[in-house]
């Protein structure tokens, strides 16, 4: 059985983000891009210290990706007098986020970044399907699924934490089905907030995620 242990959203202004990182780590995370800092803060919020050594996979999607950093790099490369500064290039590489937070999450064994190709829908159904299969087959003990975005005025992280064991305060079970189960949640970036809305109300025992992009794959959440 797979359990949903946490579902939450974080928002940070540009000034608040490094402060939050420093508070979480007790020191600054040097030369870390915004998406890396978001990944660290979300992972720390999702996983208590005693679970940070368990075999973990991080699956994260993004609408913006490192957009600001890429625009800055393009400006340097196309309009600048010379080659870009190395760290300006590194900031455009989203794959670095997982490697940079691994020292603080020793159990982080693998990560995958899933950039989104439009501004309206998300790919939670893929992240949850992969997490579900990899947890079910024992590849990892826990999975962090996230949507991380970075805009000039705000950085945001939407997080779901899943595992094969229920942690204290676990929210729901998660199962995959091949048939539609009716009245689905939309596959949009702030799915964790929608799940919290459902969990916070007396109502149906289950809710479902379906994507019009992937008929035949339904993710069912059932309250504990």
């Amino acid at each position: 059985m797979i359990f949903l242990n946490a579902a939450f959203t974080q928002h940070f202004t540009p000034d608040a983000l490094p402060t939050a990182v420093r508070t979480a780590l007790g020191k600054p995370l040097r030369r870390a891009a915004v998406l890396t800092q978001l990944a660290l803060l979300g992972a720390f919020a999702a996983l208590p210290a005693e679970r940070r050594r368990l075999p973990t996979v991080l699956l994260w999607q993004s609408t913006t990706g490192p957009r600001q950093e890429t625009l800055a790099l393009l400006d340097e490369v196309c309009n600048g007098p010379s080659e870009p500064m190395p760290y300006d290039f590194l900031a455009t590489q989203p794959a670095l986020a997982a490697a940079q937070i691994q020292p603080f999450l020793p159990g982080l064994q693998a990560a995958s970044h899933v950039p989104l190709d439009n501004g309206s829908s998300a790919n939670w159904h893929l992240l949850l399907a992969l997490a579900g299969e990899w947890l079910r087959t024992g590849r990892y003990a826990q999975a962090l699924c996230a949507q991380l975005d970075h805009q000039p005025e705000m950085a945001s992280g939407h997080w779901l934490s899943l595992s094969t064991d229920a942690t204290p305060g676990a929210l729901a079970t998660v199962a995959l089905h091949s048939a539609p189960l009716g009245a689905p949640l939309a596959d949009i970036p702030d799915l964790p907030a929608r799940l919290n809305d459902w969990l916070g109300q007396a109502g149906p025992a289950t809710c479902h995620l379906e994507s019009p992009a992937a008929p035949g794959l339904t993710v069912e959440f059932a309250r504990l």
Partner: protein
Amino acid sequence: MLRPVFIAASGLLCARGDSPGAVSEALWAGECSAGNYTLGERSFPYFALPLTETDWLLRAEHAIRQVSAQLGPLGPETPLFVASSSFQIGYFEQQGAPFAMPIGSASFSRQIAEWMGLRGVRHSFSNACVSGFSALDAARTLIGAGWIDEAIVLGIELANASTLAGFAAMELLSPGVCRPLDARRDGLVLGEAVAAIRLSATPSRWKIAGQASGLDGYSTTGPDPEGGPIARVMADCLHDAQLTAHDIELIKLQAAGSPGTDLAEAKALRQVFTAARPPLLSLKPALGHTLGASGIAELVALLACLDAERLPATANFRDADADIGLAPGTVRRTAHIRRALLNLIGFGGGLASLIVERNG
């Protein structure tokens, strides 16, 4: 994994040719010449696609349509898994300021799907050099579990100054040639490629026997020099395939001519392949390092060689490095290979290994 996953078809366009067969022929002939990419006052060797278009988008469309046609007729609902580390950044460069980047950092995947005539689900992966195997891993997982029956996994990396400039700024590029495992190795030579495979639950000649991925947080630009994380991923891959090191008959290395990464990979190989070590092959001296496309491009090129039962030599190797203590095959030979392991070691800490096995 509930059911096995097979490679039903493949397509490839890279510096060495415009089909898997043509690339296999070129590799057998030892072709490894590269052109140049000038960046300000510096010029670097570069493996460009054999295309004449200068308009970035037209060139991309030509490349995609050419590779797509090699896959055979595609059902319009076939799921598409796109792997790239740069997507269409070269297009933005050509358009110039103010760089009209659309919302959705992988918006180029929509265009790729349209060119391929695909209107089904699309997924994009951007994990630097291991992007191709990330996409393949996801597609294989969904097919293996029965959620989908087939998928197209496409790797694409097209010319752009931003990536080259970034690697140049970090002094990761060779000014000369790519020399994997060689004592004279002095950096990467980048290149372009578009490559695709059609994965299916229907049995075909090659099966994905095992796959594993990992993460090496030692540094943002290079792996743990002792190779421990790389060794663990290879061991995990063997475990996933239910094979031992003795079962592997060929290793397609990451080996891109990087001083540090080649050494780490060599140390990892010595940890996993402790007794008999299978022959080693690097394709990067002939194809260049095609970054996000490299996983699929090198897989397709390797399978074309294995189908022809002709193993190419690794070009540009001459001087053994005592610290590495390994040498790639430098003489081409015919061989019937049943199982091969492929390594990817990514800029940014991503690691991936894959085992392909001849079916039947």
